């Protein structure tokens, strides 16, 4: 046995010494130099690529690793340069991708590679290949090898590697720099739709729109200051790609006009949806809420363009469901605002009559609801939950305006039968809270609150939930009252 310990001991010591010395050399000597050199090389190269830039800013992550460079011109970030890489024939192919803030590619250049001389290294010696990327757009252009980008003959692997790297760069750009551009993309989309509306509804004075979650919900057509019609953009699947239509309806959902936004189907066949107005005219006068839009049933297809016709019908069906979602269901319900959790509203309806409305605090959290009647807050209802023995104990607590507890209801618990579930049966447990104040009372189990003997975990969880409710109440109401 001591022998075995010695064997393992020696090996372990060697491994530990080895790992420690390597990490020292890496972190203290070699690593910083490698980073520094890479930075210098990159900045030198950026200067060549964007000679009129004023300054370069290196953006690093928490570990001091370079993520991208900002190229500053005229006091603002004019371009970003993203180092990209993928593996080629002889090892990684590292490139740098320079684009302006709209995603227009300014330059793609090689940082380093180990590709075969005479073959893969032509990515560097033959600039025509990387020049293909210039003035393409990271967001809008596609980079399919063979169709959008021509590979270097005899250096396919290297070309593919470079292209993969650019695609990754585009992904990175969209994920990290899109936010500022979202509005602009929306604006571009809007201008396109407005141009179509202008054509089909020359009678209108003005067009409006509604945005939610970074998307256009619908457009409005205004005349003399009133909304006269609505327009919805929707999509169906055609033969080669989406069939995108713009459906214009009156306020009851009756179709007034349908225009094509885009169709990528075969000329002479699928595009007849656009060139032969008879087809789309069939939809006029139909109702988005009441009618069905089925080819060969309610709608006649274009002979020779069946799939595209079906795509158009699908597009209209999608418009119809969007319409119903936006205007029919939304108005019929008791108007809970979008963020409200419908389950919780349903629970509250059991305690409050239809005349009440609810306001959530913090907004959208589903925690505290102010029950409002005649524009006045009448009661607060607070949801909270804590982990019990086997499941979450959900508690609903009602308090008056000053924070005095009026009632405590255990909504759900799945804890052990005949132990944990006694919390539902033995009313005295929840009754203990009635009359206490969310602002002032303390709820120490054992002292202030008697726990259910034999169901300590469950009742402690319920008590914790009440304490959480008190915290929610204080943060929501006290803050409001203090102001």
């Amino acid at each position: 046995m001591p022998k075995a310990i010695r064997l393992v001991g020696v090996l372990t010591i060697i491994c530990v010494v080895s790992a420690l010395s390597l990490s020292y050399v890496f972190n203290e000597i070699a690593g910083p130099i490698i980073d520094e050199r890479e930075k210098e090389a990159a900045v030198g190269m950026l200067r060549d690529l964007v000679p009129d830039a004023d300054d370069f800013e290196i953006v690093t992550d928490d570990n001091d690793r370079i993520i991208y460079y900002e190229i500053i011109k005229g006091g603002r970030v004019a371009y970003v340069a993203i180092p990209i890489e993928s593996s080629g024939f002889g090892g990684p192919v590292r490139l740098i991708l320079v684009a302006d803030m709209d995603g227009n590619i300014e330059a793609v250049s090689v940082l380093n590679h180990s590709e075969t001389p005479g073959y893969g290294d032509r990515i560097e010696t033959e600039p025509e290949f990387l020049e293909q990327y210039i003035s393409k757009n990271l967001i809008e252009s596609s980079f399919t090898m063979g169709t959008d980008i021509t590979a270097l003959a005899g250096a396919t692997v290297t070309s593919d590697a470079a292209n993969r790297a650019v695609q990754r760069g585009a992904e990175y750009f969209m994920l990290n720099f899109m936010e500022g551009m979202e509005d602009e993309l929306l604006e571009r989309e809007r201008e396109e739709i407005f141009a179509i509306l202008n054509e089909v509804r020359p009678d209108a004075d003005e067009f409006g729109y509604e945005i939610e979650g970074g998307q256009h919900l619908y457009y409005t057509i205004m005349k003399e200051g009133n909304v006269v019609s609505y327009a919805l953009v929707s999509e169906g699947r055609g033969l080669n790609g989406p069939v995108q239509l713009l459906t214009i309806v009156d306020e009851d959902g009756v179709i007034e006009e349908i225009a094509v936004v885009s169709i990528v189907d075969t000329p002479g066949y699928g595009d007849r949806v656009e060139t032969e107005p008879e087809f789309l005219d069939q939809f006029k006068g139909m109702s988005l809420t009441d009618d069905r839009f089925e080819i060969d049933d309610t709608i006649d297809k274009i002979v020779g363009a069946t799939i595209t016709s079906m795509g158009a019908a699908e597009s209209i069906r999608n418009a119809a469901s969007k319409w119903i979602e936006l205007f029919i269901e939304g108005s019929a319900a008791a108007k809970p605002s979008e963020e409200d959790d419908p389950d919780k509203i349903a629970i509250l309806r059991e305690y409050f009559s239809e005349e009440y409305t609810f306001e959530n605090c913090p907004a959208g959290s589903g925690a505290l609801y102010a029950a409002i009647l005649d524009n006045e807050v009448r009661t607060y209802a607070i949801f909270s939950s804590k982990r019990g023995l086997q499941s979450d104990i959900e508690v609903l607590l009602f308090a008056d305006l000053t924070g005095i507890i009026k009632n405590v209801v255990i909504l759900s618990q799945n804890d052990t039968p005949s132990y944990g579930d006694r919390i539902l049966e033995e009313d005295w447990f929840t009754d203990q809270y009635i009359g206490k104040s969310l602002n002032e009372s303390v709820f120490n189990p054992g002292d202030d609150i008697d726990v259910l003997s034999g169901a300590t975990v469950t009742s402690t969880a319920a008590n914790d939930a009440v304490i959480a409710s008190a915290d929610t109440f204080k943060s929501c109401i006290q803050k409001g009252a203090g102001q």
Partner: protein
Amino acid sequence: MITNILVIVASAAIINNFVFKQLLGICPFLGVSNKVETSLGMGAAVTFVMAMASAVTWAIQVYILEAFSLEYLQTIMFILVVATLVQLVEMFIKKSSPTLYKALGVFLPLITTNCAVLGVALLNVRSEYGLVESVFSGIGAAIGFTLALVLLAGIRESLEEYELPKAFDGLPIVLISAGIIALAFTGFQGFF
């Protein structure tokens, strides 16, 4: 996915043949390629170890080295994995299948220092392959290695019948033969 894997296997086995194109695994290539039969035995042992090493090193790279930013320990970890794996495979085969052990046993210790095995593990990481791709790249590389071994062994067996200039007898003519096969293999370049 399947085409991707086929491309990886074909590329590792033929187009970028480990021996003829990437010049990896030369020592066993020159040492064991005397007879077609032993070449096949070595090839089988290498295939087994390479596929397993590819999978294990992938997991180590992703879940240990990258997860804790310890990429600089890659060489140490990988060579230890290969050495341990060879040992385990040897013990396992010895116990479970004495016949297989008889056939492969002598080759196994040689594999630890076969740079093709460590090479495929390192190249998998550099090519950013996923688990499945790594395993198939290992299998492809091993197929390429076996192919090279068997091709050269075939030539060496028939070379024995000829009288050669003394200076070229032995390894020189073997290397030149290998060079000519490698030249033939360049014909596959640019296939994909």
